[in-house]
């Protein structure tokens, strides 16, 4: 582990990508992630890589597609409206089983919205904003250090599963400066989400058919039944990911009367609220999914065995709450549970006090 640095989340993510051997970055400006292209434009050439400002988000994601086709580790980043424009390209990447990393530093929506932090693209990220039955692995860091770590993991998981991986952050995480510790990449490959599994060779990449038959990357499968087979193949892969990758941080849920659930920034704030509640003698727990897809249903269901009150804190109108409901329903009817929501859409960021207040209300 290198000495801690004090950096913006956006810059830490960019730096982590480079440390994880990403050598191709394609992006288009949009607040609040402009520090990513700015940083990449400085650092990539130093690292022997390529920074290219694409003409649009559409071009950027398709450049990531191209770089992945050629076997490179490539990345793009944007914020909500720009991510909407990438949906077709993301679907193509998933269909062609191309690795790649897409960061969404979310801002207030819908439409042009504003540039404040938001979490309102949860559905889009986890349910396929693009067309077709595909899934992204979605990672949701809540500190700058975790952002750096998960960025490194993102490239590894993308290569491991030949699937695009999304980093779902928000404007606060991207803009905030705090201490960041970059793990040593080799070590992280062992201790991070890859868990030391060896990466498969990219024996599918297009590099010129030298001494081998030509290769072909495509998603068009017109022969009857072939696309359905391909979908079942993808489904099998997704099932493996759902089995092996769900990850959550769980704090103090064993004896909890109420569990706060949230991801990223809202979970971070909820952590403080939980401590404040405990300080008041209220048995509050915290459930923070780190992988939003695959969502850690089983882990949350286990908690629902002993807890029936949940407060979901989201910087949106309530999206992850559906996954919380689906998880809790594995154990108990929703009639037999209280799953409350503290929604802060359109750029609002909750403060611990309001989470505490809302929790007290739930417990009443």
């Amino acid at each position, binding site marked *: 582990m290198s000495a801690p640095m004090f950096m913006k989340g956006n810059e830490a993510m960019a730096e982590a990508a480079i440390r994880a051997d990403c050598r191709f970055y394609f992006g288009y400006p949009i607040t609040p992630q402009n520090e990513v292209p700015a940083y990449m434009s400085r650092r990539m050439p130093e690292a022997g890589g390529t920074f290219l400002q694409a003409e649009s988000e559409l*071009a950027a994601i398709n450049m990531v597609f*191209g*770089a992945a086709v050629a076997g490179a580790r490539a990345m793009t980043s944007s914020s909500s409206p720009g991510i909407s424009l990438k949906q077709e*390209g993301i679907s*193509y990447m998933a269909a062609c089983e191309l690795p790649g990393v897409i960061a969404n530093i979310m801002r207030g929506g819908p439409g042009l919205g504003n540039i404040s932090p938001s979490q309102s693209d949860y559905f889009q990220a986890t349910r396929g904003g693009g067309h077709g039955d595909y899934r992204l692995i979605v990672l949701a860091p809540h500190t700058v250090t975790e952002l750096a770590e998960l960025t490194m993991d993102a490239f590894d998981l993308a290569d491991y599963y030949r699937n695009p991986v999304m980093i779902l952050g928000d404007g606060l995480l991207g803009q905030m400066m705090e201490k960041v510790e970059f793990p040593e990449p080799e070590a992280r490959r062992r201790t991070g989400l890859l868990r030391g599994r060896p990466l498969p060779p990219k024996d599918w990449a297009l590099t010129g058919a030298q001494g081998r038959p030509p*290769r072909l990357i495509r*998603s068009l499968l017109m022969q009857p039944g072939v696309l359905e087979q391909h979908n079942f193949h993808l489904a099998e892969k997704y099932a493996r990911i759902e089995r092996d990758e769900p990850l959550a941080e769980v704090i103090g849920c064993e004896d909890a009367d109420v569990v706060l659930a949230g991801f990223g920034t809202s979970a971070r704030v909820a952590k403080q609220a939980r401590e404040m509640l405990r300080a008041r003698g209220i048995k509050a727990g915290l459930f923070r999914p780190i992988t939003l897809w695959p969502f850690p249903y089983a882990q949350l269901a286990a908690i629902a065995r002993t807890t029936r009150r949940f407060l979901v804190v989201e910087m949106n109108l309530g999206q992850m709450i559906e996954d919380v409901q689906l998880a809790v329903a594995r154990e108990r009817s929703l009639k037999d549970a209280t799953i409350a929501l503290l929604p802060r859409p359109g750029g609002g960021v909750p403060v611990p006090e309001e989470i505490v207040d809302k929790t007290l209300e739930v417990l009443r």
Partner: protein
Amino acid sequence: MSRQLFARTPGLKDTVTTYCSGCGHGVAHRLLAEAIEESGARERTVAVAPVGCAVYGYDYWNFDTTEAAHGRTPAVAAAIKRVLPDRLVISYQGDGDLASIGLAEIMHAANRGDRITVIFINNTNYGMTGGQMAPTTLAGQVTTTTPLGRDSATTGQPLKVAELLATLPGVKYAARGALHKPGLVRKAKSLIQKALAVQEAGLGFSVVELVSLCPTNWGLTTLQSVELVEKQIVPVFPLGVFKDESGAKAE
């Protein structure tokens, strides 16, 4: 003793194409494959097939080929080239792909001077989807979305891609050929060869537009199609070299 004067190039696979009878994609595929094979670059080539009838290019070309989302073909090609600067990278596109949905991507790749070669098949319509208007559709031409003929007052004039791209400094070679006569086919091949050479020399972006036949959607026999090309299409899309800076040094 027997000498083969004309042989199928090893740049093509053995597969029989699914293109319609008389379709120009077949000739264009062959010329590209021959030019690449003959230059010795086949094992260094990565091609990008468009969404359009030629999406099946990968079934016919005997080199590495990827698909690209509709119109984003040059963006994919540009990225491949930046990852693998010593490979020969081809963006093969139709007029719906390049001139309609993908106009921003082609213009920007051209303006950046991306070192890729674009083979642009102008058949004045959207072949794969059944013959709708393309930006290249002639004024007055009947298509499935211009049942009374293309009305220039509301949908504009045919877009002249080779000339347009030639105006951009990043473009080092821009030409238009055709495929309906033996002499033109020979000429088209030399245009493609020149365009590939420009890429290999690292000079910049090169594009060859090929006026092509789509008898199916034109509702004509192949021979009527040839006549249409000669009498109506080529007059609007003149053949020629609009820019040739192949003499220039690589930047």
